[in-house]
């Protein structure tokens, strides 16, 4: 995990500014002690506690509820990434081409809720979605429905809740990349005879994709670790998240088994990132999204 920026830097820049690399040391030291070391402990434990070997992993593979949780976690994160991508792209596009005042308002509307505690927002959604909640009461009072709609304790509720929580991480990188796209290109396309749809699809969309990829990566990886939202909005039967499943065993101090599950999730995450790195050139994307487009 320890980065070696000095070597990489000196190779590329011919050793002209090696001293700046030293600035990374406090952060690197911090990461080694508070991230890499405990993470290593966890991985070590998964193979040694209670006994040496692959027992913990075998146990997980042989437990249907565990495997089901892993699949549910992956599937739900994928779905949420997709909904965030669709909603987030449209939203970012709206910000990009709105007037300055409206754009500022739209941006605030994304960022402000993200500052409110996740637990509070999840409870708020519970009040909105439940059988005796705002939506159902309103629809029943208007006599649009006779029996309450089943909104809460469903996978739909989990997807909705997670989309709410993760949308900012999709919108902001996309918007950031979109800001760097010169609208003159789109106009030029139109001037050369492209209809608006074609101009968007052939010119604007490809240039904005790095933002979309970056946002999708962040949302997917963050989604894998969710606990509160599925706990409070999900049905907690078939669709339990891996984090919920793990909590049962951590409370019983089964560190080895819990560590194995953690390691499996880590592996899944790293695999995702590795594939993304190959296909999408992650470094380039992140630089474009967060370093500001040039």
């Amino acid at each position, binding site marked *: 995990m320890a980065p070696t920026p000095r070597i990489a830097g000196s190779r590329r820049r011919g050793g002209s500014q090696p001293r700046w690399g030293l600035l990374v040391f406090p952060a690197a030291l911090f990461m080694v002690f508070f991230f890499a070391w405990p993470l290593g402990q966890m991985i070590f434990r998964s193979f040694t506690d209670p006994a040496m070997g692959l027992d913990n992993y075998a146990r997980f593979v042989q*437990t*249907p*509820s*565990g495997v*089901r*949780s892993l699949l549910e976690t992956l599937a739900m994160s994928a779905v949420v990434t997709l909904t965030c991508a669709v909603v987030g792209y449209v939203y970012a596009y709206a910000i990009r081409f709105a007037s300055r005042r409206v754009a500022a308002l739209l941006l605030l509307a994304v*960022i402000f809720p*993200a*500052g409110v*505690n*996740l*637990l509070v927002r999840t409870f708020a959604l519970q009040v909105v979605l*439940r*059988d*005796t909640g705002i939506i159902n009461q309103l629809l029943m009072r208007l006599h649009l429905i006779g029996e309450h709609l089943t909104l809460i*304790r469903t996978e739909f509720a989990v997807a909705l809740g997670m989309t709410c*929580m993760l949308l*900012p*991480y999709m919108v*902001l*990188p996309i*918007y*950031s990349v979109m*800001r*760097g796209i010169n609208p003159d290109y789109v106009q030029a396309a139109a001037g050369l005879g492209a209809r608006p749809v074609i101009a968007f699809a052939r010119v604007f969309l490809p240039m904005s994709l790095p933002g979309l990829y970056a946002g999708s990566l*962040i949302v997917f990886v*963050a989604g894998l670790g969710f606990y509160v939202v599925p*706990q*409070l909005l999900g049905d*907690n*039967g*078939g669709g*339990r998240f891996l984090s*919920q*499943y793990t909590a*049962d*065993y*951590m*409370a*019983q*101090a*089964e*560190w080895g088994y819990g560590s194995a599950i953690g390691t499996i999730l880590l592996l899944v995450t790293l695999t995702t990132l590795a594939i993304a790195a190959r296909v999408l050139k992650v470094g380039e994307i992140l630089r474009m*999204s*967060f*370093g*500001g*487009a040039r």
Partner: protein
Amino acid sequence: MKRARGVDGLVALLVAVVTAAACGGGNGSSASTPGTTTKSLVVVNTGGDWGACQRKSFFDPFTAKTGIAIVDGPFLTDGQIKAMVQSKQYNVDVVYPSANLALPSAGKNVLEPIDYQVVNKAELAAGTYTTYGTSIDIYAWAMGYRTDKFGGQTPKTWADFFDTKRFPGKRAMPGDNDVPAVLYAALLADGVAPDKLVPLDVNRALKKLSTIKSNIVWYATGSQGQDLLKSGEVTMGQEYANRVTSLRDAGSPVDISWDGQVVAGDLMGVPKGDPNAAAAMKFIAFVTSKDVNGTFSYCAAGAPSNVKSTPNPKIANDLPTTHLNQTHVVETSEALAEYVAAHLDSITTSFNNWRSG
């Protein structure tokens, strides 16, 4: 383009801040360090009305008597208690182990044996103290129900709980909190006598639970269960008894049935090797003593574990201990707890596999 770049920087900064805000959110646990000479003890205090009542009836009087200050500590799960003992970082001197951890088999490497020379167990209710833990109060899982949903019919037993034809609606059960209690309720409903629960027939319990599986809403914390009943999301629930009676007293259309209640004690224990163990034993003895133990019921609906103490007569009818003449299960009794502790892993796994299936 200078301005534009500034905005991009701002966006990047916001992403960073928002990410940090979302990824944080741990439960800032904050136990202070106890001195090696006991001037103060850190005792778990779970807060709320319950915690305030504990401070008033137990903590402050103890300080007044002994001069030892009591500092509120965070609740620790069994896993956290074990971790604390392993690392010898004694942040909390008096903890709440589960009934399973307080047993001779599980507790010996984690907890100090309760010093029954100091704590007077002769006065404590049967089944509410073990080698490594002493109940300071008695609580119960009982059946709470809505009085406005069944057309005047009143459910009485766990069999009624499983009868969704006569008593329609959803059921709240603490599947993320106390799996054994859920299984006891199902077995009682299926006609098993309380003294025949061991060995626990998990498959039979799950078969019974399957009959209402689609109606069950699983919950994790007492407040969630209470909220489900209060909002009418469920028409019945296996709930903490005190949470049902407090809802009723606050005007909600709910009531409680004590038949088949699962009684348990809030066990206090002391981490093994704790430098303040002697003072901690004194504290537990004080809290469970005849004159002190009953005072708690004047500010919270917790029944005294000391049978010689006098509970608040006004709420006597709402205390689990008043209804022990009816069918009940004592969850903290050694026979039951010992069996559950020995099989907890397979019970949890069977239950999870069934639940996710």
